[in-house]
């Protein structure tokens, strides 16, 4: 098992109800460019509008230095504040706390908030989830983590903006006020007690007085004299002690370590840890862990703490680092063996003396980048910048000013007291984010970014629609969004009376009533249509440029969004190759091929998902409880959307071979049959319309049906999925197709019976919104080929409505002739017309046989035991006659010879 931190941050419920609302990071080093480019969109997906990053001053200054020209959101979209040091210890904890009104998510581990810490190194992370409605959810890690954050705010010198952001996040999370006593929480920190003391206490509490069987450690960094390691050995007295490290990332000097360990017990064995992945780039092991094996128990401590004094033996209050770790134990002594038996890593014994130090331990290399006097806070509000210094300026305050880096302007400042100052902001910032330093004589403070509380508040309350931006950017994200939206559709039970008035999808539907669809079912036209003298179409590059930002569209109704998602997943992408001197066909082809593979993989998974979804949907449609909690309006709206999604998915994925005709057919029956005829797909119970009839009048149901546009969608869907019935000549040899069309007609008859025979009569073309967004160009213009498509669909649909099995179609005119004669309706011209039709169909022999022996023409069916009986006299038909009947011929009853018989196919008991 491994953990993908980016996936953990994304949240599947965000598109529905807001999911999470805030997130707080704790980190030592920091790369805000990485945060803005990669993590911020993921947090957007999860709904986190208020983000706070608490960082060691080292990380803060690195982030400023590296991002001073590129950052776009700091101070306006999120807040980043340094955790000021109490002495020499650094803020070394790495944690992400995501909070929402009903749930929490916590990540605690060894990786910093940088590309390598979150996405490249081999790190160890623990993941906790809390759902307030689930009584078995463990809240204790969240309470411990929150308590730590609160103490940083209560006892530390935090900027006001950071405090406000912290409070905003807290206000939305009522469950954090839970005062359940915390026992054995899996999160430890060393705010006021060292980790080693906590470990000692835990061992004592669990009666672990005997020596440990073994201790295994993973750490890149160690204190110079191995004091922390010695202390661990001292309190656990292990029989074996192993250190695991990445030789390419460690401060351990092997030969010195051998000397330091002399006289200590047990023997210190070293192992190298390396990534097994055969990639060009190297993955360093930056994880930290201590695994203890006792006689009948095992435990593991992992997180930010290296094997150093400042991490393990001291508390933050007493001058050590601030560390956050997770602690787990198990009665299975081998429980944590998986950590060193993972497919990602290779473990090999090495000689300790051969280990060469590659760098310093973080605590040892902390740079004194923060002088004693620096800007603690800097806020822009109401045209003024207000700031506060950590200490009064060493020299005179005269001629002090604030230099704004990106705008390259100096603002004179006015000191309110020794530390607080303000400046009038009489310029309009060129960019949202700005950095400033205070200059006073020869004294310069380090740069600090300006927090803008008003912009932060605006961003914190931005709309749901902007949160889905991130999802549409990548194929993976679009795939997830598709599922989320579909799940939302299934679970949607509340009715919104105002929907019609405000739902942009409905207004769009009306607006586009005259537009229409293409269809895969319409065969491509003749060759002449492919050679055209139309003008130049918009270049594909232009379209792709737009495609990258489809969310700029203002209409993002559920249906449109689904359309866009499918478009994102299926549009062909052609990237412009790099302008090199030498072309690299194969390199470019490979990278495009990889993207194509990824696309196919995602679409295949969505296809599987959609099939499962339609199965579930079928049972929902017959769930009395579910249907009672909703209304025909809502169900029919959902039905419309789902039908549209199926149509679009089928059309847009035709090129990818992921959704077969059978898949489409199965989905089709699953969504239409339960409405009126559930038994045909093997479901027992009342149909949807029967259930609705108990609470709503037929008129109400009919109105909801018509308002939702279901007749149009039925017409297009039936036509698209089933196509035109075959002629009787072909149909005779396609029994499966005959069954399909007989069931389809049966289904339509049932709809008509429930909702009136004219329910499918439509004067206007089907709604344009059924089309979805077929191509990138549709984002800008509308299709004009709708009318012909509508006409085509209507004609095909009418064929399905009036479908007869092939043998009835074959003898349609002959039966007509018989009926005329039977009813003594001797209209010569009609009879001549029928006779002429019969001859045209080359059924002259049948006509002559009938005319020579004009008996009634009746249908019969084949029985379960494959016998055929005469419908009049009940006699079993001779074998030869039976075969002829099965070939679709008319046969005179072999017993009484007083009736012409044809074999009508039976309706299947189940269609899927």
């Amino acid at each position, binding site marked *: *098992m*491994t953990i*993908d*931190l*980016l996936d953990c941050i994304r949240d599947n419920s965000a598109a529905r109800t807001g999911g999470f609302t805030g997130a707080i990071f704790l980190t030592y080093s920091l*790369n805000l*460019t*990485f945060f803005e*480019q*990669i993590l911020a969109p993921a947090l957007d997906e999860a709904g986190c509008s208020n983000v706070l990053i608490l960082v060691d001053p080292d990380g803060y200054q*690195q982030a400023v*230095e590296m991002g001073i020209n*590129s950052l776009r959101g700091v101070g306006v979209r999120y807040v980043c504040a340094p955790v000021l040091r109490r002495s020499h210890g650094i803020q070394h904890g790495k944690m992400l706390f995501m909070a929402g009104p009903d749930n929490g998510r916590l990540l605690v*581990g060894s990786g*910093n908030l940088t*590309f390598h810490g*979150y*996405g490249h190194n*081999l790190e*160890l*992370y*623990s993941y906790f989830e809390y759902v307030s409605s689930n009584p078995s959810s463990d809240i204790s890690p969240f309470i411990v983590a929150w308590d730590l954050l609160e103490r940083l705010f209560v006892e530390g010198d935090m900027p006001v903006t950071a405090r406000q952001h912290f409070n905003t996040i807290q206000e939305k999370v009522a469950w954090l006020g839970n005062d359940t006593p915390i026992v054995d929480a*899996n999160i430890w920190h060393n705010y006021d007690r060292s980790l080693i003391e906590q470990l000692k206490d835990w061992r004592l509490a669990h009666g672990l007085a005997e020596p440990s069987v073994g201790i295994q450690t993973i750490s890149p960094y160690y204190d110079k004299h191995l004091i922390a390691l010695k202390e661990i050995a001292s309190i656990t007295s292990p029989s074996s002690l192993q250190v695991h490290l990445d030789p390419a990332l460690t401060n351990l000097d092997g030969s010195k370590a051998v000397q330091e360990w002399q006289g200590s017990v047990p023997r210190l064995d070293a192992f190298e840890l390396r990534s097994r992945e055969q*990639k*060009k780039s190297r993955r360093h092991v930056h994880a930290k862990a201590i695994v203890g094996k006792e006689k009948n128990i095992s435990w*593991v401590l992992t997180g930010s703490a290296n094997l150093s004094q400042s991490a393990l033996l001291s508390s933050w209050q007493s001058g050590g680092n601030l560390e956050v770790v997770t602690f*787990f134990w198990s009665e299975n002594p081998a429980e944590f063996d*998986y950590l060193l038996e993972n497919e990602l890593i290779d473990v090999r014994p090495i000689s300790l003396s051969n280990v060469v130090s*590659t760098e310093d331990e973080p605590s040892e290399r902390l*740079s004194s980048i923060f002088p004693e006097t620096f800007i603690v806070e800097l806020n822009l509000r109401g045209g003024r910048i207000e700031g506060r210094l950590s200490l009064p300026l060493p020299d005179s305050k005269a001629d002090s000013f604030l230099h704004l880096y990106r705008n*390259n302007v100096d603002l004179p400042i006015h000191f309110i007291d020794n530390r607080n100052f303000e400046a009038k902001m009489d310029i309009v910032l060129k960019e949202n984010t700005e950095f400033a330093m205070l200059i006073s004589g020869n004294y310069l403070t380090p740069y600090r970014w300006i927090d803008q509380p008003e912009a932060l508040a605006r961003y914190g309350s931005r709309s749901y629609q902007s949160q889905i931006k991130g999802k549409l950017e*990548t194929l993976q994200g679009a795939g997830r969004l598709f599922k989320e939206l579909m799940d939302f559709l299934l679970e949607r039970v509340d009715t919104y009376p105002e929907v019609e008035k405000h739902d942009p999808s409905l207004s769009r539907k009306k607006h586009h009533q005259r537009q229409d669809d293409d269809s895969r079912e319409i065969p*491509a036209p003749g*060759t002449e*249509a492919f*050679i055209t*003298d*139309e003008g130049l179409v918009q270049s*594909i*590059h232009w379209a792709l440029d737009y495609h990258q930002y489809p969310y700029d569209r203002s209409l993002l109704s559920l249906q449109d969004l689904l359309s866009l998602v499918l478009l994102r997943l*299926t549009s062909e992408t*052609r990237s412009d*190759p*790099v*302008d*090199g*001197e030498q*072309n690299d*066909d194969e390199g*470019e*082809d*490979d*990278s*495009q091929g990889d993207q194509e593979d*990824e696309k196919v993989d995602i679409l295949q998974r969505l296809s599987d998902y959609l099939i499962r979804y339609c199965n579930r949907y079928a049972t929902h449609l017959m769930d009395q409880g579910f249907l009672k909690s909703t209304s025909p309006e809502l169900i029919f709206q959902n039905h419309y959307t789902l039908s549209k999604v199926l149509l679009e998915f089928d*059309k*847009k994925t*035709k*090129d990818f071979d992921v959704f077969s005709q059978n898949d489409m057919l199965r989905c089709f029956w699953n969504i239409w049959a339960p409405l009126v005829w559930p038994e045909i797909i093997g479901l027992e119970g009342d149909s949807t319309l029967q259930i609705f009839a108990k609470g709503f009048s037929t008129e109400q149901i009919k109105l909801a049906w018509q308002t939702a546009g279901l007749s149009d969608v039925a017409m297009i869907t039936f036509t698209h999925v089933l196509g035109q019935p075959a002629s009787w000549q072909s149909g005779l040899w396609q029994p499966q197709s005959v069954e399909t069309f007989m069931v389809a007609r049966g289904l339509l008859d049932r709809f008509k019976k429930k909702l009136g025979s004219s329910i499918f009569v439509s004067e206007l073309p089907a709604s344009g919104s059924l089309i979805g967004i077929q191509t990138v160009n549709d984002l800008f213009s509308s299709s004009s*080929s709708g009318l012909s498509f509508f006409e085509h669909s209507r004609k095909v649909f009418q064929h399905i409505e009036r479908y007869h099995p092939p043998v009835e179609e074959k003898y349609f005119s002959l039966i007509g002739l018989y009926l005329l004669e039977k009813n003594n309706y001797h209209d010569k011209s009609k009879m001549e017309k029928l006779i002429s039709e019969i001859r045209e169909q080359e059924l002259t022999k049948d006509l002559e046989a009938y005319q020579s022996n004009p008996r009634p023409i009746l249908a019969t069916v084949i029985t379960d035991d494959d016998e055929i009986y005469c419908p009049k006299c009940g006699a079993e038909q001779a074998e030869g006659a039976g075969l002829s009947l099965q070939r679709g011929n008319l046969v005179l009853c072999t017993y009484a010879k007083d009736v012409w018989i044809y074999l009508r196919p039976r309706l299947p008991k189940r269609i899927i």
Partner: protein
Amino acid sequence: MTNPSFPQWTTKIAKGKDVVGEDMLGIEGAAQSYQQALIPGIISTTDRARYYSFYAWVLYRFINFQRGKRLLKNFRGKYFKRHEVALILGAYSHHLGEEPLRGLIGAGTNYNKVSLWWDENNPVSLDVGYFKNKLGGFGQYYFTVMQALEIVLDSEQPSWVYRLTKSYGEPLAKAFERSISNTTYFKKLSTSDELESLTHKDSVNYGKAACICADALNKGDDLPLLRDAFFRFDQVGSDNPHVFRRLSLAVAMDLVRGAKGKFDRDLMLRPALYLGEYSSGLNYKPLPELDDWALRWKMVSIRHQYTFGLQALWGAFILKLRDAIGGISFAELMQWLRSSIGADIFDKPLSKYLDARCGDVSLKANWQKSYREFSVACRQSSQNDEYSLYLLARSHREDPDVLLRVGIQTLTQHYLRFLPLYQNPTGVWMEMAKRERLPLISYYQFVGESLSSDLVLGNWLEAIYRDFILGQHEFIALQKLRYQNYDTFKFYHREGRFYWPFRTPKQWREPIRLAGNRLRNALSILTDLGLVEEDSLRQLSLTKDGREYLTRTIELRSHDN
């Protein structure tokens, strides 16, 4: 089952394979998009004219291929590839024993694929794997340019195949078909719709008529139509992409004309545009009617040279990082820069450094007084011009000290050379100079500010490295990670230090090159079209038809104006 909260190893968030890639600073796109506007229909990967008619023919056949039902899914894959592989075999056989034919898509580097197919089988299967893209070179490169030339159109419905235009698409397809109508391949194709293999004999026979080389095209019926499609003499107007292409082709021909039969596209194209001289003493002066278009192409070169200056500095950094066990901090990088170029230069004011550059080319060592003459004074004879510096860097691509010196000198001389244009910006200058990323005007503004604040060269260089190079690479790599899921990071920045991210030192280095100039592709296409010819010394000159086409373009230009 293991407790899901138990600690787990983290996976990489970049799920795509590690990509080596080029343009690690993401700064080549500006010139690329500008060139796309200047010469629509020709991109850096489309340099053979015959493909424009060949692909039209394959599409035309498919449209008329009954079983294909004109559905895109039936066009992609086997159907398309069989046609393209047949062309590869034909072209290969047409030049057997000669050096590999340039621009033959899918043949493999130095024919490594096609020669294997050829050597191992007779007949050769047409179902060999040669390209992942199901539409081969058409899908990968030529589709969009053929759209620009109004040969093909996008499909009307997603499931339908692309369309051919009546004006050019269909006639080109038919003309190509006439050109190959006597080949045995075509005759067999006519009776069986699709062929699954091709004999060597049929390939040779097909190659003579269908090859993408100039010889075969010059005998083909499609040649006149192709010329028309590229030049579009029927089109006029100041905002017409066909006119843009025609004028760009005219600039390419004018460059050939100006060299009086001695044009060497490898050595002369770039200096002629950038410096206004083909080689030392041989100047390029555009025809007056083409002044503005020649300037536009000069702007492409100006941008390329600026890009190269930054890439040289980036290349120097990469070489240092590669050898820095334990990484390198920014301060250490600055120390190396100082020692490499010398403390006296590093600590010298930038203005003094510019003075020295002027002095080097026999101008008064006062840049403010001399910069207007710099462009004329600093040419190839001095060996100090930016193009000569580029050649120097190219021959010392593993030497960080040379790359550093070349980078600094290129960027500063660039400023001196084009400061007059920056100070008196014309529309043409602005078309290119404001293009993202790291626009030229931002750089000129930055240098101007550095000079006015009397910055020393070292501080100027520090800002260049921080803002134009390291920050830029990180930003671009993150963009690629975000949108394409690729890991293209060329350094690993951890806690204030940069580290080499790869397993071995040889894994990557900055390719020392100038970004592609599409006039080079235009010259190749003009050669295919028989308007430019190449002699045995690979020197280009205009053919009789070429001179006529140039004259006609100039006349139309005068008339249009």
